[in-house]
Protein backbone atom coordinates (compact mmCIF):
# COMPACT_ATOMS: atom_id res chain seq x y z
CA UNK A 1 0.00 0.00 0.00
CA UNK A 2 1.35 3.39 -0.96
CA UNK A 3 0.62 6.00 1.65
CA UNK A 4 2.38 9.05 0.33
CA UNK A 5 0.58 12.35 0.23
CA UNK A 6 -0.24 11.87 -3.43
CA UNK A 7 -2.46 8.89 -2.65
CA UNK A 8 -4.39 10.41 0.17
CA UNK A 9 -6.09 13.09 -1.85
CA UNK A 10 -4.97 15.96 0.36
CA UNK A 11 -4.43 19.17 -1.46
CA UNK A 12 -0.72 18.80 -1.89
CA UNK A 13 0.87 21.80 -3.53
CA UNK A 14 -2.13 24.06 -3.00
CA UNK A 15 -1.43 26.89 -0.60
CA UNK A 16 -3.48 25.98 2.49
CA UNK A 17 -5.29 29.32 2.55
CA UNK A 18 -6.73 28.51 -0.92
CA UNK A 19 -7.83 25.02 -0.01
CA UNK A 20 -11.19 24.20 1.51
CA UNK A 21 -9.84 21.17 3.27
CA UNK A 22 -6.85 21.04 5.55
CA UNK A 23 -3.52 20.09 4.06
CA UNK A 24 -2.15 17.03 5.82
CA UNK A 25 1.29 15.70 4.93
CA UNK A 26 3.78 13.16 6.18
CA UNK A 27 7.23 13.76 7.63
CA UNK A 28 8.29 10.16 6.93
CA UNK A 29 7.26 8.07 9.96
CA UNK A 30 8.39 10.71 12.46
CA UNK A 31 5.44 13.09 12.30
CA UNK A 32 2.41 14.38 10.44
CA UNK A 33 1.94 18.06 9.63
CA UNK A 34 -1.61 19.38 9.76
CA UNK A 35 -2.18 22.77 8.08
CA UNK A 36 -5.49 24.49 8.67
CA UNK A 37 -7.28 25.98 5.68
CA UNK A 38 -8.19 29.64 5.58
CA UNK A 39 -6.86 32.84 7.02
CA UNK A 40 -3.97 33.41 9.36
CA UNK A 41 -5.86 34.78 12.33
CA UNK A 42 -6.34 34.29 16.01
CA UNK A 43 -9.65 32.45 15.66
CA UNK A 44 -8.06 29.82 13.43
CA UNK A 45 -5.11 29.57 15.83
CA UNK A 46 -7.47 29.01 18.77
CA UNK A 47 -8.87 26.00 16.93
CA UNK A 48 -5.31 24.72 16.40
CA UNK A 49 -4.69 24.93 20.15
CA UNK A 50 -7.89 22.97 20.80
CA UNK A 51 -6.85 20.36 18.24
CA UNK A 52 -3.39 20.13 19.83
CA UNK A 53 -4.88 19.41 23.27
CA UNK A 54 -7.05 16.69 21.82
CA UNK A 55 -4.41 14.96 19.66
CA UNK A 56 -1.75 15.04 22.40
CA UNK A 57 -3.82 12.46 24.30
CA UNK A 58 -3.99 9.99 21.41
CA UNK A 59 -2.20 6.72 21.78
CA UNK A 60 1.12 6.55 19.94
CA UNK A 61 1.41 10.36 19.81
CA UNK A 62 4.31 11.85 21.76
CA UNK A 63 3.47 15.51 21.20
CA UNK A 64 1.13 17.80 19.27
CA UNK A 65 2.98 21.05 18.62
CA UNK A 66 1.17 24.13 17.33
CA UNK A 67 2.81 26.21 14.61
CA UNK A 68 1.25 29.20 12.85
CA UNK A 69 -2.24 27.83 12.01
CA UNK A 70 -0.75 24.37 11.74
CA UNK A 71 0.03 21.45 14.00
CA UNK A 72 2.96 19.04 14.06
CA UNK A 73 1.92 15.64 15.41
CA UNK A 74 4.99 13.69 16.55
CA UNK A 75 4.78 9.94 16.94
CA UNK A 76 6.08 7.92 19.86
CA UNK A 77 5.12 4.89 17.75
CA UNK A 78 4.19 5.56 14.14
CA UNK A 79 0.72 4.21 13.33
CA UNK A 80 0.58 1.09 11.16
CA UNK A 81 -2.55 2.29 9.35
CA UNK A 82 -1.59 5.84 8.47
CA UNK A 83 -4.61 6.53 6.24
CA UNK A 84 -6.95 5.84 9.14
CA UNK A 85 -4.89 8.12 11.39
CA UNK A 86 -5.02 10.96 8.85
CA UNK A 87 -8.78 10.57 8.48
CA UNK A 88 -9.26 10.72 12.26
CA UNK A 89 -7.06 13.81 12.42
CA UNK A 90 -9.20 15.59 9.86
CA UNK A 91 -12.36 14.57 11.72
CA UNK A 92 -10.89 15.93 14.94
CA UNK A 93 -10.22 19.26 13.20
CA UNK A 94 -13.81 19.57 12.07
CA UNK A 95 -14.95 18.86 15.61
CA UNK A 96 -12.48 21.31 17.20
CA UNK A 97 -13.95 24.45 18.74
CA UNK A 98 -11.76 27.50 19.30
CA UNK A 99 -10.11 27.40 22.73
CA UNK A 100 -10.93 30.48 24.80
CA UNK A 101 -8.07 32.91 25.38
CA UNK A 102 -7.33 32.14 28.99
CA UNK A 103 -3.56 32.60 29.12
CA UNK A 104 -1.80 34.97 31.45
CA UNK A 105 -0.61 38.45 30.64
CA UNK A 106 2.98 39.51 31.24
CA UNK A 107 4.85 42.79 30.78
CA UNK A 108 8.42 42.57 29.49
CA UNK A 109 10.66 45.53 30.37
CA UNK A 110 12.51 46.56 27.21
CA UNK A 111 15.41 48.90 26.59
CA UNK A 112 14.95 50.14 23.03
CA UNK A 113 18.07 50.99 21.05
CA UNK A 114 21.49 50.80 22.66
CA UNK A 115 24.19 48.27 21.99
CA UNK A 116 21.89 45.29 21.45
CA UNK A 117 19.08 47.22 19.76
CA UNK A 118 21.45 48.84 17.31
CA UNK A 119 19.08 48.49 14.33
CA UNK A 120 16.50 50.83 15.87
CA UNK A 121 17.67 53.74 13.71
CA UNK A 122 17.67 51.57 10.54
CA UNK A 123 14.13 50.38 11.24
CA UNK A 124 13.00 53.93 11.89
CA UNK A 125 14.59 55.07 8.61
CA UNK A 126 13.17 52.13 6.64
CA UNK A 127 9.64 52.67 7.97
CA UNK A 128 9.77 56.46 7.65
CA UNK A 129 8.91 56.83 11.33
CA UNK A 130 10.66 58.63 14.16
CA UNK A 131 12.44 56.50 16.76
CA UNK A 132 9.76 57.53 19.26
CA UNK A 133 7.01 56.40 16.88
CA UNK A 134 8.71 53.04 16.33
CA UNK A 135 8.97 52.55 20.09
CA UNK A 136 5.39 53.55 20.75
CA UNK A 137 3.96 51.46 17.89
CA UNK A 138 5.99 48.46 19.00
CA UNK A 139 5.08 48.77 22.69
CA UNK A 140 1.39 49.54 22.17
CA UNK A 141 -0.20 46.15 21.33
CA UNK A 142 -0.99 43.21 23.54
CA UNK A 143 0.79 40.46 21.57
CA UNK A 144 -0.54 36.91 21.63
CA UNK A 145 1.83 33.94 21.86
CA UNK A 146 0.67 31.92 18.85
CA UNK A 147 3.20 29.13 19.14
CA UNK A 148 6.59 28.12 20.53
CA UNK A 149 9.33 26.89 18.23
CA UNK A 150 12.65 27.59 16.54
CA UNK A 151 14.78 27.38 19.71
CA UNK A 152 14.07 26.62 23.38
CA UNK A 153 11.50 29.06 24.78
CA UNK A 154 11.11 31.15 21.62
CA UNK A 155 7.60 32.54 21.08
CA UNK A 156 5.93 33.31 17.76
CA UNK A 157 3.88 36.43 18.43
CA UNK A 158 0.80 37.76 16.68
CA UNK A 159 -0.24 41.39 16.71
CA UNK A 160 2.61 43.57 15.42
CA UNK A 161 1.59 46.83 13.76
CA UNK A 162 2.13 46.27 10.01
CA UNK A 163 3.71 49.72 9.71
CA UNK A 164 6.78 48.27 11.46
CA UNK A 165 7.41 45.54 8.89
CA UNK A 166 11.02 45.40 7.62
CA UNK A 167 12.40 42.82 5.16
CA UNK A 168 14.78 40.32 6.73
CA UNK A 169 18.52 40.74 6.39
CA UNK A 170 20.04 39.28 3.23
CA UNK A 171 23.05 38.13 5.26
CA UNK A 172 22.09 36.85 8.70
CA UNK A 173 24.06 37.96 11.77
CA UNK A 174 26.22 35.22 13.30
CA UNK A 175 25.00 35.83 16.81
CA UNK A 176 22.53 38.04 18.61
CA UNK A 177 22.23 37.76 22.40
CA UNK A 178 19.44 36.27 24.49
CA UNK A 179 16.75 38.85 25.11
CA UNK A 180 17.25 40.60 21.75
CA UNK A 181 13.91 42.15 20.63
CA UNK A 182 13.79 42.11 16.84
CA UNK A 183 11.64 42.55 13.76
CA UNK A 184 11.71 40.29 10.71
CA UNK A 185 9.18 40.84 7.94
CA UNK A 186 5.79 41.47 9.54
CA UNK A 187 6.73 39.68 12.75
CA UNK A 188 8.43 40.57 15.99
CA UNK A 189 9.98 38.33 18.61
CA UNK A 190 12.51 38.01 21.40
CA UNK A 191 15.48 35.62 21.21
CA UNK A 192 15.36 33.22 24.15
CA UNK A 193 19.04 32.27 23.82
CA UNK A 194 22.03 33.55 21.82
CA UNK A 195 22.10 32.49 18.18
CA UNK A 196 22.22 33.54 14.53
CA UNK A 197 19.44 35.77 13.21
CA UNK A 198 18.29 37.41 10.02
CA UNK A 199 16.12 39.88 11.89
CA UNK A 200 16.68 43.52 12.89
CA UNK A 201 17.29 44.00 16.60
CA UNK A 202 15.63 47.10 18.07
CA UNK A 203 15.91 46.45 21.79
CA UNK A 204 16.72 44.15 24.64
CA UNK A 205 15.02 42.58 27.66
CA UNK A 206 16.47 40.70 30.63
CA UNK A 207 13.26 38.70 30.97
CA UNK A 208 13.94 34.94 31.09
CA UNK A 209 11.98 32.84 28.60
CA UNK A 210 13.42 29.45 29.36
CA UNK A 211 14.81 27.76 32.44
CA UNK A 212 15.53 24.04 32.51
CA UNK A 213 15.13 24.04 36.30
CA UNK A 214 11.46 24.98 36.12
CA UNK A 215 8.94 22.10 35.98
CA UNK A 216 7.70 23.59 32.70
CA UNK A 217 10.89 25.01 31.19
CA UNK A 218 9.26 27.56 28.88
CA UNK A 219 7.96 30.64 30.69
CA UNK A 220 5.20 31.27 28.15
CA UNK A 221 2.68 29.03 26.44
CA UNK A 222 0.43 29.47 23.41
CA UNK A 223 -2.47 31.72 24.38
CA UNK A 224 -0.41 33.84 26.80
CA UNK A 225 -0.17 37.55 26.00
CA UNK A 226 2.73 39.92 26.40
CA UNK A 227 3.25 43.65 26.36
CA UNK A 228 6.61 45.35 25.86
CA UNK A 229 7.02 47.93 28.66
CA UNK A 230 9.39 50.74 27.66
CA UNK A 231 12.12 50.87 30.28
CA UNK A 232 14.20 53.37 28.40
CA UNK A 233 15.11 54.42 24.90
CA UNK A 234 18.79 54.76 24.04
CA UNK A 235 19.31 56.95 21.02
Amino acid at each position, binding site marked *: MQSTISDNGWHAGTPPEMAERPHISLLATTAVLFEAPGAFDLAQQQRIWALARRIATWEGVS*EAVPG*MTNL*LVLFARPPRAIDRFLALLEEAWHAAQASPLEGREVALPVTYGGEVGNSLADVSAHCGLSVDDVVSLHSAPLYTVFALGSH*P*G*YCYLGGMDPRLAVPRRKVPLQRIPAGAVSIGGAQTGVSASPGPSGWHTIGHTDWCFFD*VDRPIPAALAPGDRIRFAVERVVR
Partner: protein
Amino acid sequence: MIELLAVSGPTTVQDLGRLGQYRFGVGTAGAMDDVALRAGNLLNGNSEDAAGIEIAIAPLRLRFLAETQFALTGGDAEALLGDRPLLPWWRVTARTGDVLTVRRITRGALVYLTVAGGIDVPPVLGSRSTQLRGEFGGLEGRVLRAGDRLPVGAPPARAILLDFGIEPPEFALARPLDRAEATVLRVVAAGEYHAFDMAARSLFWSTAWKVTPQSNRYGYRLEGSPVLPREPIEKRSHGIVPGVIQIPPSGQPIIQVRDAQTSGGYPKIGTVIEADLWRLGQARLGSSLRFAEASYDEALAARDAVEAYMGRLAATIARYREY
Protein backbone atom coordinates in the same frame (compact mmCIF):
# COMPACT_ATOMS: atom_id res chain seq x y z
CA MET B 1 36.10 9.66 34.98
CA ILE B 2 37.53 10.53 31.56
CA GLU B 3 39.83 13.47 30.96
CA LEU B 4 39.96 15.08 27.52
CA LEU B 5 43.59 15.79 26.55
CA ALA B 6 43.14 17.10 23.01
CA VAL B 7 39.99 17.89 21.04
CA SER B 8 40.16 19.25 17.50
CA GLY B 9 36.54 19.76 16.46
CA PRO B 10 32.90 19.68 17.50
CA THR B 11 32.85 16.72 19.87
CA THR B 12 29.80 16.44 22.13
CA VAL B 13 28.05 14.23 24.65
CA GLN B 14 24.97 12.67 23.05
CA ASP B 15 22.37 10.06 23.89
CA LEU B 16 19.37 9.13 21.76
CA GLY B 17 17.94 12.63 22.10
CA ARG B 18 15.59 14.75 24.13
CA LEU B 19 12.10 13.63 23.23
CA GLY B 20 8.82 15.20 24.26
CA GLN B 21 10.06 18.81 24.58
CA TYR B 22 9.20 20.06 21.09
CA ARG B 23 6.29 22.18 22.34
CA PHE B 24 8.79 24.25 24.34
CA GLY B 25 10.90 24.81 21.23
CA VAL B 26 13.45 22.21 22.31
CA GLY B 27 14.77 20.07 19.46
CA THR B 28 15.84 16.48 19.96
CA ALA B 29 19.65 16.83 19.62
CA GLY B 30 20.98 13.27 20.11
CA ALA B 31 23.44 11.06 18.22
CA MET B 32 23.54 11.65 14.46
CA ASP B 33 24.29 7.92 14.02
CA ASP B 34 21.82 6.46 16.49
CA VAL B 35 22.54 2.91 15.32
CA ALA B 36 26.23 3.27 16.28
CA LEU B 37 25.41 4.73 19.70
CA ARG B 38 22.86 2.02 20.44
CA ALA B 39 25.20 -0.77 19.33
CA GLY B 40 28.07 0.71 21.35
CA ASN B 41 25.89 0.72 24.43
CA LEU B 42 24.90 -2.91 23.83
CA LEU B 43 28.58 -3.85 23.53
CA ASN B 44 29.12 -2.32 26.97
CA GLY B 45 26.08 -3.96 28.53
CA ASN B 46 24.38 -0.56 28.92
CA SER B 47 20.83 0.32 28.08
CA GLU B 48 20.70 1.49 24.46
CA ASP B 49 20.04 5.10 25.38
CA ALA B 50 23.07 5.71 27.61
CA ALA B 51 25.13 8.77 26.66
CA GLY B 52 28.38 8.52 24.73
CA ILE B 53 30.80 10.89 23.03
CA GLU B 54 30.24 11.81 19.39
CA ILE B 55 33.60 12.49 17.76
CA ALA B 56 33.35 14.48 14.53
CA ILE B 57 36.96 15.43 13.92
CA ALA B 58 40.22 13.72 14.76
CA PRO B 59 42.76 13.86 16.30
CA LEU B 60 41.29 13.41 19.73
CA ARG B 61 43.09 12.21 22.84
CA LEU B 62 41.65 11.33 26.22
CA ARG B 63 42.75 9.56 29.38
CA PHE B 64 40.79 7.05 31.42
CA LEU B 65 41.17 8.00 35.08
CA ALA B 66 39.85 4.60 36.20
CA GLU B 67 39.59 1.13 34.67
CA THR B 68 36.86 1.51 32.05
CA GLN B 69 35.27 -0.79 29.51
CA PHE B 70 34.57 1.12 26.35
CA ALA B 71 33.63 0.62 22.71
CA LEU B 72 34.29 2.47 19.49
CA THR B 73 31.48 2.33 16.94
CA GLY B 74 30.29 4.45 13.99
CA GLY B 75 32.93 5.20 11.39
CA ASP B 76 36.34 3.55 11.24
CA ALA B 77 39.34 5.31 12.69
CA GLU B 78 43.02 4.88 13.30
CA ALA B 79 42.63 4.51 17.04
CA LEU B 80 45.11 3.42 19.67
CA LEU B 81 44.73 2.46 23.31
CA GLY B 82 48.20 3.24 24.56
CA ASP B 83 50.19 1.91 21.59
CA ARG B 84 47.77 -0.89 20.79
CA PRO B 85 45.68 -0.40 17.63
CA LEU B 86 41.92 -0.89 18.01
CA LEU B 87 39.45 -2.46 15.61
CA PRO B 88 36.18 -0.71 14.69
CA TRP B 89 32.92 -1.72 16.39
CA TRP B 90 35.02 -3.20 19.14
CA ARG B 91 34.91 -3.27 22.91
CA VAL B 92 37.96 -3.32 25.15
CA THR B 93 38.96 -2.48 28.70
CA ALA B 94 41.21 0.47 29.47
CA ARG B 95 43.30 0.42 32.61
CA THR B 96 43.63 3.42 34.88
CA GLY B 97 45.74 6.02 33.14
CA ASP B 98 45.45 4.51 29.64
CA VAL B 99 45.31 7.07 26.84
CA LEU B 100 42.97 6.63 23.88
CA THR B 101 44.04 8.36 20.68
CA VAL B 102 41.76 8.73 17.67
CA ARG B 103 44.27 9.78 15.03
CA ARG B 104 42.19 9.92 11.90
CA ILE B 105 38.66 9.00 10.85
CA THR B 106 39.18 6.74 7.84
CA ARG B 107 35.62 5.70 7.01
CA GLY B 108 32.36 7.52 7.67
CA ALA B 109 32.21 10.85 9.48
CA LEU B 110 31.52 10.16 13.14
CA VAL B 111 33.05 7.86 15.73
CA TYR B 112 31.22 7.08 18.97
CA LEU B 113 32.95 6.36 22.24
CA THR B 114 30.61 4.57 24.62
CA VAL B 115 31.61 3.39 28.08
CA ALA B 116 30.19 0.79 30.46
CA GLY B 117 27.94 2.82 32.75
CA GLY B 118 27.52 5.62 30.20
CA ILE B 119 28.80 9.20 30.29
CA ASP B 120 27.12 10.36 33.47
CA VAL B 121 26.57 14.08 32.97
CA PRO B 122 23.32 15.19 34.65
CA PRO B 123 20.22 14.55 32.56
CA VAL B 124 18.41 17.78 31.62
CA LEU B 125 14.76 17.58 30.54
CA GLY B 126 15.05 13.83 30.27
CA SER B 127 18.27 13.58 28.25
CA ARG B 128 22.04 13.93 28.47
CA SER B 129 22.34 15.16 24.86
CA THR B 130 24.05 18.49 24.32
CA GLN B 131 21.57 21.25 23.35
CA LEU B 132 23.97 23.71 21.80
CA ARG B 133 21.45 26.46 21.04
CA GLY B 134 19.84 26.26 24.49
CA GLU B 135 23.27 25.88 26.12
CA PHE B 136 22.20 22.99 28.34
CA GLY B 137 22.62 19.22 28.48
CA GLY B 138 25.86 17.37 27.78
CA LEU B 139 28.78 19.06 29.51
CA GLU B 140 27.62 22.61 30.31
CA GLY B 141 25.62 22.68 27.06
CA ARG B 142 28.72 23.06 24.91
CA VAL B 143 31.23 21.17 22.76
CA LEU B 144 34.02 19.40 24.64
CA ARG B 145 37.49 20.86 24.97
CA ALA B 146 40.86 19.82 26.34
CA GLY B 147 40.92 19.67 30.11
CA ASP B 148 37.25 18.64 30.44
CA ARG B 149 36.50 15.77 32.78
CA LEU B 150 33.51 13.56 32.10
CA PRO B 151 31.98 11.37 34.82
CA VAL B 152 31.33 7.71 34.00
CA GLY B 153 28.30 5.98 35.52
CA ALA B 154 28.42 2.77 37.53
CA PRO B 155 29.15 -0.10 35.11
CA PRO B 156 26.40 -2.68 34.64
CA ALA B 157 26.58 -5.50 37.17
CA ARG B 158 27.29 -8.28 34.71
CA ALA B 159 30.27 -6.98 32.84
CA ILE B 160 31.79 -8.90 29.94
CA LEU B 161 35.44 -9.57 30.54
CA LEU B 162 36.55 -10.60 27.07
CA ASP B 163 37.24 -8.10 24.33
CA PHE B 164 35.07 -8.60 21.31
CA GLY B 165 33.42 -6.78 18.45
CA ILE B 166 30.34 -6.76 16.29
CA GLU B 167 29.71 -6.63 12.59
CA PRO B 168 29.09 -3.05 11.41
CA PRO B 169 25.45 -2.49 10.38
CA GLU B 170 26.23 -1.89 6.70
CA PHE B 171 26.38 -5.69 6.37
CA ALA B 172 23.28 -6.65 8.33
CA LEU B 173 21.30 -3.66 7.01
CA ALA B 174 22.60 -3.86 3.44
CA ARG B 175 20.06 -2.91 0.75
CA PRO B 176 19.86 -3.70 -2.97
CA LEU B 177 20.00 0.04 -3.68
CA ASP B 178 23.39 0.53 -1.95
CA ARG B 179 26.10 1.94 -4.19
CA ALA B 180 29.78 2.42 -3.77
CA GLU B 181 29.96 6.01 -5.02
CA ALA B 182 27.11 7.57 -3.03
CA THR B 183 25.17 7.25 0.19
CA VAL B 184 21.61 6.36 -0.79
CA LEU B 185 18.90 7.70 1.51
CA ARG B 186 15.28 6.63 1.32
CA VAL B 187 12.91 9.57 1.30
CA VAL B 188 9.14 9.89 1.79
CA ALA B 189 7.60 12.75 -0.21
CA ALA B 190 6.58 15.69 2.01
CA GLY B 191 3.97 18.46 1.98
CA GLU B 192 5.21 20.51 -0.97
CA TYR B 193 6.41 17.64 -3.19
CA HIS B 194 3.62 18.28 -5.67
CA ALA B 195 4.54 21.95 -5.94
CA PHE B 196 7.53 20.73 -7.99
CA ASP B 197 6.89 19.76 -11.59
CA MET B 198 7.87 16.39 -13.05
CA ALA B 199 11.19 17.69 -14.33
CA ALA B 200 12.16 19.16 -10.95
CA ARG B 201 11.12 15.99 -9.14
CA SER B 202 13.07 13.75 -11.45
CA LEU B 203 16.10 16.02 -11.04
CA PHE B 204 15.72 15.66 -7.27
CA TRP B 205 15.69 11.85 -7.49
CA SER B 206 18.42 11.52 -10.11
CA THR B 207 21.02 14.01 -8.86
CA ALA B 208 24.14 12.89 -7.00
CA TRP B 209 24.01 15.65 -4.36
CA LYS B 210 27.32 16.86 -3.00
CA VAL B 211 27.59 17.34 0.78
CA THR B 212 29.03 20.87 1.14
CA PRO B 213 31.44 21.94 3.91
CA GLN B 214 28.56 23.99 5.41
CA SER B 215 27.10 20.73 6.75
CA ASN B 216 26.98 19.90 10.44
CA ARG B 217 24.69 18.71 13.23
CA TYR B 218 22.23 21.49 12.37
CA GLY B 219 21.79 20.69 8.73
CA TYR B 220 23.36 19.19 5.61
CA ARG B 221 23.58 21.73 2.83
CA LEU B 222 23.71 20.02 -0.53
CA GLU B 223 24.89 21.16 -3.93
CA GLY B 224 23.68 20.10 -7.36
CA SER B 225 21.43 21.33 -10.17
CA PRO B 226 18.87 23.62 -8.51
CA VAL B 227 15.47 22.06 -7.89
CA LEU B 228 12.79 24.74 -7.90
CA PRO B 229 9.04 24.67 -7.31
CA ARG B 230 6.68 25.90 -10.06
CA GLU B 231 6.36 29.16 -8.16
CA PRO B 232 8.04 30.51 -5.03
CA ILE B 233 6.46 29.16 -1.84
CA GLU B 234 6.49 30.82 1.56
CA LYS B 235 5.05 28.66 4.28
CA ARG B 236 3.74 29.78 7.63
CA SER B 237 6.16 28.67 10.33
CA HIS B 238 5.56 25.03 11.17
CA GLY B 239 7.24 22.24 13.05
CA ILE B 240 9.96 20.27 11.27
CA VAL B 241 11.84 17.12 12.28
CA PRO B 242 15.33 15.68 11.72
CA GLY B 243 15.47 14.37 8.14
CA VAL B 244 13.24 17.03 6.57
CA ILE B 245 14.58 18.14 3.18
CA GLN B 246 13.83 21.80 2.59
CA ILE B 247 14.26 23.65 -0.67
CA PRO B 248 15.31 27.28 -0.01
CA PRO B 249 15.03 29.87 -2.83
CA SER B 250 18.47 28.81 -4.15
CA GLY B 251 17.06 25.39 -5.10
CA GLN B 252 19.90 23.69 -3.21
CA PRO B 253 18.41 21.26 -0.67
CA ILE B 254 19.04 21.46 3.07
CA ILE B 255 18.49 18.35 5.16
CA GLN B 256 17.66 19.42 8.69
CA VAL B 257 19.22 17.18 11.31
CA ARG B 258 19.51 16.71 15.07
CA ASP B 259 20.39 20.25 16.16
CA ALA B 260 18.05 21.96 13.68
CA GLN B 261 15.49 24.52 14.76
CA THR B 262 12.18 22.90 15.66
CA SER B 263 10.33 25.01 13.10
CA GLY B 264 10.83 26.36 9.62
CA GLY B 265 9.11 27.90 6.64
CA TYR B 266 10.87 26.69 3.50
CA PRO B 267 8.98 24.25 1.26
CA LYS B 268 9.65 20.60 2.07
CA ILE B 269 10.16 18.20 -0.81
CA GLY B 270 10.65 15.09 1.32
CA THR B 271 11.87 13.57 4.57
CA VAL B 272 14.74 11.10 4.97
CA ILE B 273 13.31 8.05 6.72
CA GLU B 274 14.30 7.48 10.36
CA ALA B 275 16.00 4.19 9.50
CA ASP B 276 18.44 5.99 7.17
CA LEU B 277 19.38 8.96 9.36
CA TRP B 278 22.44 7.07 10.64
CA ARG B 279 23.65 6.70 7.04
CA LEU B 280 23.28 10.47 6.60
CA GLY B 281 25.24 11.01 9.82
CA GLN B 282 28.13 8.99 8.37
CA ALA B 283 28.18 10.84 5.00
CA ARG B 284 31.47 12.72 4.76
CA LEU B 285 31.82 16.32 3.63
CA GLY B 286 32.40 16.33 -0.11
CA SER B 287 30.76 12.93 -0.60
CA SER B 288 27.64 12.30 -2.68
CA LEU B 289 24.08 11.60 -1.58
CA ARG B 290 21.29 10.13 -3.65
CA PHE B 291 17.63 9.97 -2.75
CA ALA B 292 15.40 6.96 -3.37
CA GLU B 293 11.63 7.32 -3.11
CA ALA B 294 9.94 5.31 -0.38
CA SER B 295 6.35 5.00 0.78
CA TYR B 296 5.25 5.39 4.39
CA ASP B 297 4.90 1.63 4.65
CA GLU B 298 8.39 1.05 3.27
CA ALA B 299 9.70 3.54 5.84
CA LEU B 300 7.91 1.58 8.58
CA ALA B 301 9.38 -1.69 7.32
CA ALA B 302 12.88 -0.16 7.28
CA ARG B 303 12.36 1.03 10.86
CA ASP B 304 11.31 -2.49 11.84
CA ALA B 305 14.46 -3.88 10.17
CA VAL B 306 16.70 -1.62 12.30
CA GLU B 307 14.82 -2.66 15.44
CA ALA B 308 15.18 -6.33 14.48
CA TYR B 309 18.94 -5.84 13.95
CA MET B 310 19.21 -4.22 17.40
CA GLY B 311 17.20 -7.04 18.92
CA ARG B 312 19.51 -9.64 17.35
CA LEU B 313 22.58 -7.79 18.59
CA ALA B 314 21.19 -7.51 22.11
CA ALA B 315 20.24 -11.19 22.22
CA THR B 316 23.58 -12.38 20.81
CA ILE B 317 25.61 -10.22 23.17
CA ALA B 318 23.52 -11.37 26.14
CA ARG B 319 24.21 -15.00 25.21
CA TYR B 320 27.90 -14.32 24.76
CA ARG B 321 27.96 -12.75 28.20
CA GLU B 322 26.60 -15.99 29.66
CA TYR B 323 29.13 -17.99 27.69
